[in-house]
């Protein structure tokens, strides 16, 4: 079966399940969401290879959007086009958000790719990061902990740790490089 054939088969299957769901068939709708979840995961994973932590969040966000915006699907139109437009909107939204977020939070923007995959996954990703942080020497660990994770300013961090401001900046910078190496070794 060629790619287009499988897309058409998926379209038919999902369309029927989705429309049944629109008419109130909860079991069909459940199956539709499960199938769609898998498809979305694949779609986002291919497009977010730099941000693997974001994939599952985005799958959930898109499933939620599909659900809350489902009255904007017109029954005669191809479902593929509708789902794709919704998923792409959420993907672009994520990119835009991250761009803004990164621009606001990256005073030293060369090595911060490390944090690009951890910021929004507050729970689990941060625990991993915590473990890696523990491997850093104190003069790197504390500046990163206070400025990057707790959001203090360089000044406040300097006061808190008794380090000079330039030592805090250097500590963040070198510590991030060290973390990037650790991160690479891990993955």
């Amino acid at each position, binding site marked *: 079966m060629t790619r287009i054939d499988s897309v058409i088969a998926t379209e038919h299957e999902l369309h029927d399940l989705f429309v049944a769901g*629109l008419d*109130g068939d909860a079991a069909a709708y459940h199956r539709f*969401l499960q199938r769609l*979840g898998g498809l979305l995961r694949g779609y986002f994973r291919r497009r977010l290879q730099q941000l693997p932590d974001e994939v599952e969040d985005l799958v959930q966000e898109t499933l939620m*959007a599909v*659900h*809350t*915006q489902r009255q*904007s699907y017109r029954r005669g139109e191809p479902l593929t086009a509708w789902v794709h437009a*919704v998923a792409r909107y959420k993907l672009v939204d994520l990119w835009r958000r991250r761009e803004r977020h990164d621009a606001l939070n990256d005073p030293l923007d060369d090595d911060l790719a490390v944090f690009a995959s951890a910021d929004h996954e507050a729970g689990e990703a941060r625990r991993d990061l915590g473990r890696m942080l523990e491997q850093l020497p104190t003069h790197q660990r504390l500046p990163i902990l206070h400025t990057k994770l707790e959001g203090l300013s360089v000044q406040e961090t300097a006061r808190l740790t008794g380090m000079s401001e330039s030592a805090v900046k250097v500590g963040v910078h070198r510590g991030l490089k060290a973390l990037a190496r650790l991160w690479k070794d891990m993955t």
Partner: protein
Amino acid sequence: MKTDELIGLLARDAGPVPARAGERRFAIALMVGVALALAWVQAAYGIRADLAAVMGTAAFWQKVAMPLSVAGTGLIVVFRLGHPGVRMGGWWLGVWLPVSLLWIWAAAVLWMAEPAARAPLVLGTTWRTCVFNVTATALPIGVALLWALRGLAPTRPVLTGAAAGWLAGAVGACVYSLHCPEMAAPFVAIWYVLGMGLSAALGAVAGRRWLRW
């Protein structure tokens, strides 16, 4: 939350979803918006006394031809923008073509007029207030359209807001013409179009704020 749990949660909230929800929202929005705009024109400016007689003349219909046709095509464009994945086709052309034709016509009118008659053709007697009045009349219609779009899912919020503002401007111009005493094509070509443009600009700003989802 695990994705499977979320799916279970959402599935329990299955339909029924009414078919043609979008059509219904747009119909309600236009009815409410136009009713408010009519009330505004009646209260703030007054419907022109000779309306019944004027509506029998070709000049009146030539004047509203542009906003009426923009309203028609604009409705289709905005409706499509509200639905993800629906192709626009050539409909974009439809929201601009009537203005282009009006401009050609207005230019011809000006070109053929006596030099002394040109300024009155362009300025009429109400040019100072026309832009603002068209935009103000469009406002309730624009707000109603934004409400309709918030129930749908525009994937290009700014563009959709601008198109909705342009459409509201066109409908607002139709309603305002029930008061407006100007009948010259050059007047409509400039001041009405500016009023619609201002409405579109407001729509773009509003779309950016309120049409994200």
